[in-house]
């Protein structure tokens, strides 16, 4: 059989397309490494300054970056702030989000489902500064009224606001994960005489666990990285919290609030970038841990 040669332009177009797709694929790596590199580059010199120590940075609660005589760069209180707000947000958002995802995907009728999905997507599109505004005005008054706390901007406020922001993400991605479970599983399960709840609990959740975990993680990611809303809702006080009605400052809020005031290339400026590196590391560790968990589950 004679070999038919394809026209030169077709070969060229295919190669070009391959190249474009290749670039798209590796661009994510380039961007991540690039961001890390530039943030780290600004932060790096401060590590060698005589007035700075890394142990103090990580383990001291004293943050006096603009003091005349007693400069301290300790971010432990802010790590505690980020941690406490995030944990509270997840405690609220994960059950709510997964519950809503299960309801939307498995239990509600088609009409309600469409309505709910549109509203949930709308909820996800609300800008974070609007959430912060709600935290600052509406939520803080409610908290003062119901708990008797001296100030309404605190962990509870930030946690609730972050939870409200994470829920739509958890719901829409969780719902996608449940939708991706083949219908044949549902039919096979129900044909065996299971009730709908047993089906969800014994078949759908195990089958969709990777996707559901991803949904939760993206929720966590949003909560850890969120800046504007927590800046407005948590009270901005640098100290280790003792209860959920204490005001705290998070790592992100600290950067956002102080970067504008810090003179460029001063130690203060560089320490704020180092805080950025720390945040980056936290998200990296969280993602890595989740990845390992998923792999562990898969192996079983």
């Amino acid at each position, binding site marked *: 059989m004679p070999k038919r040669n394809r026209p030169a332009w077709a070969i060229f177009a295919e190669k070009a397309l391959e190249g474009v797709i290749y670039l798209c694929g590796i661009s994510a790596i380039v961007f991540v490494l690039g961001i890390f590199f530039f943030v780290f580059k600004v932060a790096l010199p401060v590590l060698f300054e005589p007035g700075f120590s890394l142990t103090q940075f990580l383990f001291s609660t004293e943050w006096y970056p603009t003091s005349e005589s007693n400069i301290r760069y300790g971010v432990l209180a802010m790590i505690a702030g980020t941690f406490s707000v995030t944990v509270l947000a997840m405690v609220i958002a994960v059950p709510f989000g997964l519950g809503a995802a299960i309801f939307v995907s498995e239990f509600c009728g088609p009409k309600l489902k469409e309505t709910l999905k549109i509203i949930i997507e709308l909820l996800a599109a609300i800008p974070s500064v609007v959430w912060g505004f709600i935290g600052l005005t509406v939520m803080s008054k409610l908290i003062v009224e119901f708990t008797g706390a001296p100030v309404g901007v605190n962990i509870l406020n930030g946690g609730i606001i972050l939870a409200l922001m994470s829920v739509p993400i958890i719901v829409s991605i969780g719902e996608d994960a449940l939708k991706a479970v083949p219908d044949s599983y549902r039919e096979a399960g*129900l044909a065996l005489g299971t009730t709908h709840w047993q089906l969800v609990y014994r*078949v759908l959740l195990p089958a969709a666990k990777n996707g559901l975990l991803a949904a939760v993680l993206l929720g966590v990611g949003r909560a850890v990285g969120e800046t504007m809303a927590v800046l407005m809702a948590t009270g901005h006080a640098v100290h280790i919290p003792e209860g959920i009605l204490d005001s705290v400052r998070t790592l992100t809020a600290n950067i956002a609030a102080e970067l504008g005031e810090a003179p460029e290339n001063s130690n203060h400026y560089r320490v704020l970038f180092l805080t950025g590196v720390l945040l980056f590391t936290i998200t990296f560790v969280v993602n890595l841990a989740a990845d390992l968990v998923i792999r562990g589950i898969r192996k079983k």
Partner: protein
Amino acid sequence: MVTAAPKISVQDLRLAFGAKEVLHGISFDIGRNEIFGVIGPAQSGKTSLLRCINRTIDFSPDATMTGTVLVDGEDVRKTRNVYGLRRKIGMVAPLPVGLPLTIYENVAFAPRCVGVSAKSELDGLVEKCLTQAALWDEVKDRLDSLGTKLSGGQQQRLTIARALSHQPEVLCLDEFSIAIDPVTTMRIEDVLKELRKDITIILVTNLVQQARRLADRAMFLWNGDIVELDRNEVIFSEQPASRKTYEYVHGIFG
């Protein structure tokens, strides 16, 4: 002699998906402890018929079903306990659907759902069902690995074991041998002959010879209508009532 009431009685069953009717008002009875063969080409409504009996047809939102299907005299469309109905009927689909669980849990799934939790009881049940499905010897050392990792034929036998696990009174087999080698098929066919002492079996198959080997009676379904329903000896003889049956059974059809 007592005339036994039929296990399943179908009267004027019509089923439509949207505007397209796929079953045009069919009526027949299936006796107790009978192997009832359903033969017919693709698209003749065989699988839809099974889905009407255990009401998994409910999952197709555009399906409308009229007429009556009685299982033990109870109308499946009016039953209060559809879960109980489905537990009474074991269903094996043509393409195996291993649930994403271990081999053990696949079989223990249905018993667990009705509250069986004693390990010894489950162990016994799992071994019994897997043995009946001619799979026990191949998997007894790896009951903890995922059911979805078995080969196609093994998965099919796993679904047979699963369908038997809730001790159904009716077993519906929809093209069960499509992914199984002939030797294993024979082993399962022997099991079916054995099971027939206790339960009723509906055997939907494209393999005319399989229906001939196993069934007591056979129904030839074509385009949603019953062409002929009679004892095997008649259907597979040289003189069935319908010329069409003769042609289909002897491979002249189409």
